[in-house]
């Protein structure tokens, strides 16, 4: 591990208040993520995985404790600053792809750069390079409805990568895919990680977790284990 972790969670809790009842989604969770790691955050549904991802992704702030991005407490940043960091430093990949249906693949991929103040010409050039990296350049002018699930997820990954983010955050990236396509997507993440890209994957699927060197287990909002294996298991197809 490097001296200053990329992401550091220190005693993070997140409590929601619904109809006067306080529900703790995440309780006193602490861990660091270093540059270049690939980490699986595992747990059954309702264990606080998504809440944790929202906080790492700067979409939400902890009720207690602190999230540090490159040593800076994100709670000290303004809403606008956090938005700017999301555009430049975080690449989101969602279970349901979340592509804009009315824009074609290349426009979708280029979208984060709109919020970085980059010219349209450069946006499209970089989007092409990003689509190339996930093997989807031939589909650049197709709309999401014209693409298969796996193809849409590749486009979404290209979008997540376009701004060269510090970290790619994937929330159940294979959850909507069949096992073969899911395995391809996982292989893509693994390949990205080999180029030095930090990846955090949220999943309830133990098959995915075995592809990652480090696995963090959550249960009822609490961290139950944080394991790093030195030897990855032989690759096998993910089961869902």
């Amino acid at each position, binding site marked *: 591990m490097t001296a200053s972790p990329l992401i550091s969670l220190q005693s993070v809790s997140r409590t929601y208040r619904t109809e006067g009842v306080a529900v703790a989604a995440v309780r006193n969770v602490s861990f660091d993520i270093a540059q270049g790691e690939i980490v699986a955050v595992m747990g059954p549904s309702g264990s606080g995985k998504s809440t944790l991802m929202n906080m790492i992704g700067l*979409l939400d702030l902890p009720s207690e404790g602190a999230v540090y991005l490159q040593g800076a407490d994100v709670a000290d940043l303004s809403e606008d600053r956090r*938005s*700017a*960091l999301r555009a430049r430093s975080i690449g*989101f990949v969602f279970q349901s792809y*979340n592509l*804009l249906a009315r824009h074609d693949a290349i426009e979708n991929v280029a*979208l*984060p750069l709109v919020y970085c*103040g980059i010219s349209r010409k450069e946006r499209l050039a970089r989007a092409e390079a990003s689509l190339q990296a996930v093997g989807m350049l031939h589909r650049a002018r197709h709309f999401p409805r014209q693409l298969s699930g796996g193809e849409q997820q590749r486009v979404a990954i290209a979008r997540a990568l376009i701004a060269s983010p510090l970290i790619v955050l994937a929330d159940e990236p294979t959850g909507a895919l069949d096992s073969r396509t899911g395995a391809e997507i996982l292989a893509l993440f693994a390949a990205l990680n080999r180029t030095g890209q930090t990846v955090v994957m949220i999943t309830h699927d133990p098959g995915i977790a075995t592809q990652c060197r480090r696995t963090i287990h959550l249960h009822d909002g609490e961290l139950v284990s944080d394991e790093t294996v030195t030897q990855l298991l032989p690759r096998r197809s993910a089961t869902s």
Partner: protein
Amino acid sequence: MTMLQGFQIALHALRLNPLRSFLTMLGIVIGVASIVTVFAIGSGAQLRLQEQIRSIGANVLMITPGAVYQGGVRLKDGSKLTMTESDVQAILEQIPEIQAAAGSIAGTAQVIHEGKNWNTTINGTTSGHFLVRDWQLAAGRSFSATEESGAGKVVILGSTVARELFASGDDPIGAQIRIMKVPLEVVGVLDRKGPAQDDVAFVPLTTAKLRFLGSASNINRDSVAYIIAKVAADGQMAGARAEIENLLRQRHRIPAGQEDDFKVQDPAAAMEAQQGAIRTVALLLVAIASVSLLVGGISIMNVMIVSVTERTREIGIRRALGGRMRDIRLQFLCEALVLCLLGGAIGVAGGVTLSMTVARMAGWITSIDGQAIGLSLVFSIATGLIFGFYPAHKASKLSPIEALKTE
């Protein structure tokens, strides 16, 4: 995100739903088209009145017969000619502010020149008439003193009558025309003064009385139908008017407390009042048209609110990918602005077309001025900003986490 990007995104979104976009902007289209049309018709009417005011001449007072009692019965205004040529003389001589004055009698008759004829107003008057109305001769001369006193057989034609009786290239000066079988020599042709004014033929007052209009029962040898008088300066109008009233009351021996048998009017002032009325009516119509602009704005707000709800997930995605709250606000504000501007532009085109159609079909004068067009475009932009702000603000306030969860 820049303003330009905002407009690009807005145009993209609106193109995807062309029918909805058009229906949304229809209220603005109708409102702006009405405002432009009403302005065009209103300023056209004002232009026509201004032309009429100009054609009467500046600082002109008009004296017409008033109501008279005959055996206890009150007859309507003008039914008896109460003014005389000596009244004209007295006004001219005794009131220093009066520069020129002329009495007139008028009727309608057919004028004939060779194979052509034309029905027009025959005005019997003196050369002072042209001085009062600042009316220049385009050709020829005015009446001479002997023609005026001796019922000379001469005529001065308005430009419309000259055009109708003589082929272009024919010189009317010196030609003989006939009015009610009386042959008259054309001695002058007047400058153009306006479509309503130029259709007239002037003969000396004595000629008119002796040869054409004298048989009418209510004309005695000295009477005139109306008098026009020119006041030297603008500021003297009210004073001159009062002096004429005093003078005529004395001359007509009207005791104090009894109604005048004449009326002194300032036609330009009356028309200016009419102009004011037209302006008021036009403003009222613009106000009504503005209501449709308001309704158009509300319809835009309504559709924008629906659109924000429909696109909650898109908003969530954009926020997650780095869109700031103000970027989302700008995006939806730009959509409302584009709707209003596009609607405004279509409305201006429609209004211009409509007022040109009205001008052609109804024969009205319309005048399209840039001010009205500019004003309605400013109104459209204001409508877009006012009614687009709330939905845009609502969109920007959405929590990205909640927005991403919606289906």
